[in-house]
């Protein structure tokens, strides 16, 4: 596949991983592990991909053929001020520094409002300067920020979103359902890095569950940290995970084009765990969203 096809894809739709040009291809981002460690060396023949139950001819796209567009969505609310912000800056800088040369990144921060500090670019210096400009203040509009991160068209690479947050949403306009729907419709893989909330009760908060679900839906992962110094290590893990993933490509055959597509994916190796998006959606026959029917 040429870089141009990624470009066409991105222009056509951020939402589904379906790229329409002369050919129509679906890209599936897959993470294969055995006992927690990534499994390398897999080839086309090792994967079985079904689209709505129909087996597809999928191939593994080389990493160099599939540069990333990483969107960093970072919590810069009041609670991050101080040492945590410095840890976050170091982590974001380390992440940007670890990207491949053709990868791009964008920087979005959220507090009371959602701000774009830098559009998607491969210019590392510009990104590092934007990271250095981050300041922490205000409330937490996390759901709004994630929604924009998932829905906005960012660049022409394989879309990845890295969220950092240390607290709960306090000021978003959009609601949990809006975010979950956006996650289902997006081709972006979401990685969540969050520091655990302090307070009574040891159970997972509703917010933590929501973020974990978003990561699961998109085939990504989430990390729950105990303290600020762990942020940089978590961002390095995100990068390692992203770089260790396979990208599978196939041209759907034997299935209707528009609508919701269920993806089944198997790896012909024993004892492996496979993490990937389980569905995608092609506009044209928009399904009604839950709770959106007219009374």
């Amino acid at each position, binding site marked *: 596949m040429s870089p141009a096809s990624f470009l066409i894809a991105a222009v056509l739709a951020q939402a589904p991983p379906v790229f329409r040009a002369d050919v129509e291809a679906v890209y599936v981002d897959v993470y294969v592990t055995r006992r927690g460690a990534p499994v390398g060396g897999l080839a086309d023949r090792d994967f079985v991909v079904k689209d709505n139950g129909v087996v597809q001819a999928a191939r593994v796209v080389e990493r160099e053929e599939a540069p990333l567009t990483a969107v960093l969505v970072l919590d810069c609310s009041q609670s991050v001020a101080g040492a945590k912000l410095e840890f976050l800056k170091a982590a974001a800088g380390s992440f940007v520094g670890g990207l491949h040369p053709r990868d791009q990144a964008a920087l979005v921060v959220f507090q*009371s409002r*959602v701000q774009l500090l830098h559009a998607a670019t491969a210019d590392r210096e510009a990104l590092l300067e934007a990271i250095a400009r981050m300041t922490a203040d*205000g*409330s937490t509009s996390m759901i709004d920020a994630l929604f924009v991160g998932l829905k906005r068209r960012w660049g022409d690479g394989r879309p990845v979103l890295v969220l950092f947050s240390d607290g709960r949403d306090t000021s978003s306009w959009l609601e949990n359902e809006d975010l979950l729907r956006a996650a289902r419709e997006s081709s972006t893989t979401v990685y969540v890095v969050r520091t655990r909330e302090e*307070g009574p009760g040891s159970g997972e908060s509703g917010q933590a569950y929501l973020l974990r679900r978003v990561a699961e839906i998109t085939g990504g992962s989430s990390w729950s940290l105990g303290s600020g110094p762990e942020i940089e290590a978590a961002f390095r893990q995100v990068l390692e995970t992203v770089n260790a993933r396979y990208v599978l490509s196939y041209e759907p055959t034997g299935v209707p084009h528009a609508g919701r597509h269920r993806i089944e994916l198997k790896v012909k190796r024993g004892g492996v765990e496979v993490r990937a998006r389980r569905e995608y959606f092609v*506009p044209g026959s928009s399904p*009604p969203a839950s709770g959106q029917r*007219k*009374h």
Partner: protein
Amino acid sequence: MSFAAPALTRVFSLCAALGALSPAAPAIAQDATLAQLADRYRQGYRDDALGEIGLWTAERTRREVEGLLQLRPFDPALVFAAALLHVHRALLGSVNTLEYRDQHLAAATRLLLAAADAPVSAGSAGLARRMFLVVGLALEEALDVGTAHDVVRAGLERFEDDPELLTVLGMTLETGPSLRTYDLPPDARRRSLDARPEFSVEGSGSRGEWRRFPESSLGEAEAAFRRALAADPGLSEARLRLGRVRLLRGRLGEAIVDLQQVAREDGSLRRRYLAHLFEARAHEKRGDPEAAVRAYRAAVAVEPEGQAAWMGLGRALDLLGRRDEAQEALVAVLGIHRERGDPWLSYTRGDLERIEPLMAELQAALAR
């Protein structure tokens, strides 16, 4: 059309301006007491008074408050002036630091309750009512919703069916259950009026505290707003909030009627923006994204830097499959540069627009 300044900033800039207009002050006494400072405040030397109490520790504040209340003859006007001074200080404190705000609001509450039933002077019957209102609004602004609720209830025991107090009561009942956690300190505790017969300002940790109102409080909120509107049908803040409460309760048709009335008739840009915003949400809940798009577009016409409205517009257009237009809205979301430009962000903090004229009215009424 845009707001001249964000609502939150406006309140504080006004407070600062009131201080800046102070006449040249005679020298301030060393270790001036609260009584002396409240008197200076009444004379219009506000900078000095605000500056001095801003330096006080929590313990000093407590001591000064109790000292003032021991003075004989008891002077309710002076006590009210001291309460207003503390409210003023708390509002100024919100601009830069939250650190000292709680002690000033606690002091204002204590002073208000101590003086509320004493006759101030002939012709000043409305003073105590407005004092309850300003302290309630300031507590709501600080998200100390539980204390705001108690203060306003105490006011309503004295001024039954007062529409403005009923509106603030409704606010506390409306925001109590819906308020999201505000990055609270983990040990945050609600300070209850009942639980502190001995006044204390130490370690209150009240920032972001609120009572966990039960969901049924939305019904009580609706009743409070309806009572307020029965007493004063032109009270738009009550109608706006009645519309939102009905939206939260799923009474979408009624909500839309209320909100459209506010959007059509009210002169406040803040309220018109919020009315359009909530109306859009009601249309979304009814499964009518086309109507939601129209309402969101009306909201951004009123406030072009309303991020919530742009966000909702992007979402509604996306639902309709109008993806290019949705992208334009999302680009607009990220193009907003003004912090706190969106009245939605301060909605749970009550009616900030009302605090401004109320402070001025009270300062004039208490002037000496």
